[in-house]
């Protein structure tokens, strides 16, 4: 865990200088009726600070994966956290009332957008859930030495 925190610190500091007020309209229909094919771009990242309203490791709302509903200063934002197993492996629990900071950006999803988190911070613990290119991490990213050794026994 310490390793993860150390590695995302730089990103958090950078993003901290780019704190934008993220409106509740983070998820919205794409304008002008034109959908997007969009890559994640860190230059578009914003910092979202708020309180957890609800955490769902497998929301029925697209995109597939874990979601957290955040109450920010300007409304509620549904945040896609990617693979719930990455959060589990990092022992990051999100409960209603937790104060969190999310680094991420809006990504196109069908006719609308979704707020895609790259880093989730709760207290001193910051967890990366997407790569710098915006792809949700797999549990392989969280392998400890003990887990690597255990995988050596897989047949």
């Amino acid at each position: 865990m310490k390793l993860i925190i150390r590695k995302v610190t730089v990103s958090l500091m950078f993003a901290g200088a780019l704190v934008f007020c993220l409106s509740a309209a983070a998820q919205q229909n794409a304008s002008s009726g034109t959908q997007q094919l969009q890559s994640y771009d860190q230059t578009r990242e914003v910092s979202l600070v708020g309180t957890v309203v609800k955490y769902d490791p497998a929301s029925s709302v697209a995109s597939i994966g874990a979601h957290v509903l955040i109450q920010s200063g300007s409304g509620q934002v549904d945040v896609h956290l990617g693979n719930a197993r990455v959060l589990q492996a990092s022992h990051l629990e999100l409960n209603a009332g937790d104060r969190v900071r999310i680094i991420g950006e809006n990504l196109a999803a069908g006719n609308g957008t979704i707020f895609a988190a790259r880093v989730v911070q709760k207290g001193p613990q910051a967890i990366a859930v997407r790569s710098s290119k915006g792809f949700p991490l797999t549990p392989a990213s969280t392998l400890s030495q003990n887990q690597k050794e255990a995988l050596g026994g897989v047949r």
Partner: protein
Amino acid sequence: MKRLFLALASVAALWTAACGGGGGTTVLPPPTGKFSLSSLNGTYSFVTNGEVITSTAATSFALARAGSFTANGQGGITAGVEDVNSSGVTTLAVQITGGSYTVNADGRGTLTLNLGSGGSINFGLVLTSTSGGLMIDETFNSTQASTGSGNFILQTGGPFTVASAAGPYVFDFSGLDGNQTFPCPCPDSIVGDFTANSGVVNTGVQDENDNGNIPATPTPVSFTGVLAQDALDPNGPADLSTFGRGVASLNGINYVFYIVSSNRLRFLSTSNGEMLVGDAVAQNNTIPANVAALNSGFSFIVSGMSGNGGIIRIGRFTATGATVSNVLVDTNDAGTFTSTNSGTSTSITLDPVNPGRGTVTFKDPNLSVPFTFVFYLSSATNGVIQDVTQSTTNGATDVADGAIGGQTGSPFSSSNITGTYAMNWSGLSVQSGVADEEDLVGQATVSNLAFTTGAADIYEFQSVFLHNAGAQTDNALTGSILLNGGNGTGSDGKRSTMAVTLTKNGQATTVNFVVYFVSPQLAYFANTSTSSTRIVAGVLEAQP
């Protein structure tokens, strides 16, 4: 067919849709068909790709296997070898010392491989012929639970030597890259071709999409490599001669390979941290010499990972010379399903320097940037394809690859889509509150475009364990195919759909798909769910 997802994309019995009432026990009718134990007779190379949970790790990790086993035609496994790569951690040359299998009349069956290191691994399978079939990993024991999809193919042309791999091959390797810097390993796709000559690879080219990093204009990169006997194989040269197993280095990445025949090699990476798996298929002299020679409809499917999660693109187009028409594409992006009904700004090119390599581009009028794909043809109509669609900034929108096949035998109708079919799907579904691996293998009879009788095994993780195995096997499979006026050319702007209903102990679940026929004997499909509870893709393959 190679597994479509990887944990890349790869996700309770969320059998939420169309659940029927509870109670009762599913009793399948006695299977009918022409298969028996003697249908599995010989040495077969297998590959599966999925996930594993170990007894010491409360999470799931990507897992790929490649190997070979010998079936005696009487229900026994006499020998074999397998290699395992779990999220970059490898266990190599595991000897298979025995085992058993069953084959029902419908081609469905089970396979147990006993390992020299102790224990066994288990699979569900369905034969598509005596030369092979589709399979899913159903291993569930005190130390690991694993599932994943793959296939097995009869090996011919042995005893093998390194020189058995000869001539040009087209390949598609996908999985996780070898970047050990957090937060990688990251998704990776490599398609290309190489020529092998007595173990020397000196004319390879490849297009790689590693974690979305691709050149602005798709550009192949040259590489060299070697194929060799594995000097560290505890079974010595026998594993090469009997099972076709050797080691390779291609563009600096180490692999084990299995020679299926001179026409197909199977690769599994063994470099530290990397998990790439895929086949190389011999390229024949029917590949089109130039774009003017193109005259076919093509179906294609790619799967992998987008910024939203798992992604599938499936569709078809017609190439008449340099003209691309009748474009249909369906995208399931992490549970968001969108359809492209036409293409503008279309183009298709063939690389004059690298035979068989080409690019195809078309734009959905409702999308801001065009779809772009790189393909490598191994024949006039078959090949591999990689999505290199990129937004205006910051590289590829996704990392995904798959298969492309020239459409033959249209118009597709109830007259030619009939008989018995093997089925496999793979991907993610939501199970016990977590999106995780799901794999299905089954068989069904199609009559008047309805799945009249059928059965399937479906394996999923539940929490950090597999479901009870008994609850997963032998679901009744029924359903239907709606050709929707489709004639296989897309000229009517319509796509075909398919509904599959699985019933177990009175619980019924229907999963809806779009389906693109390559021929009456082969189709690709992807689910159309508009919720984020399942994203799977698969293949429907006729039995003889």
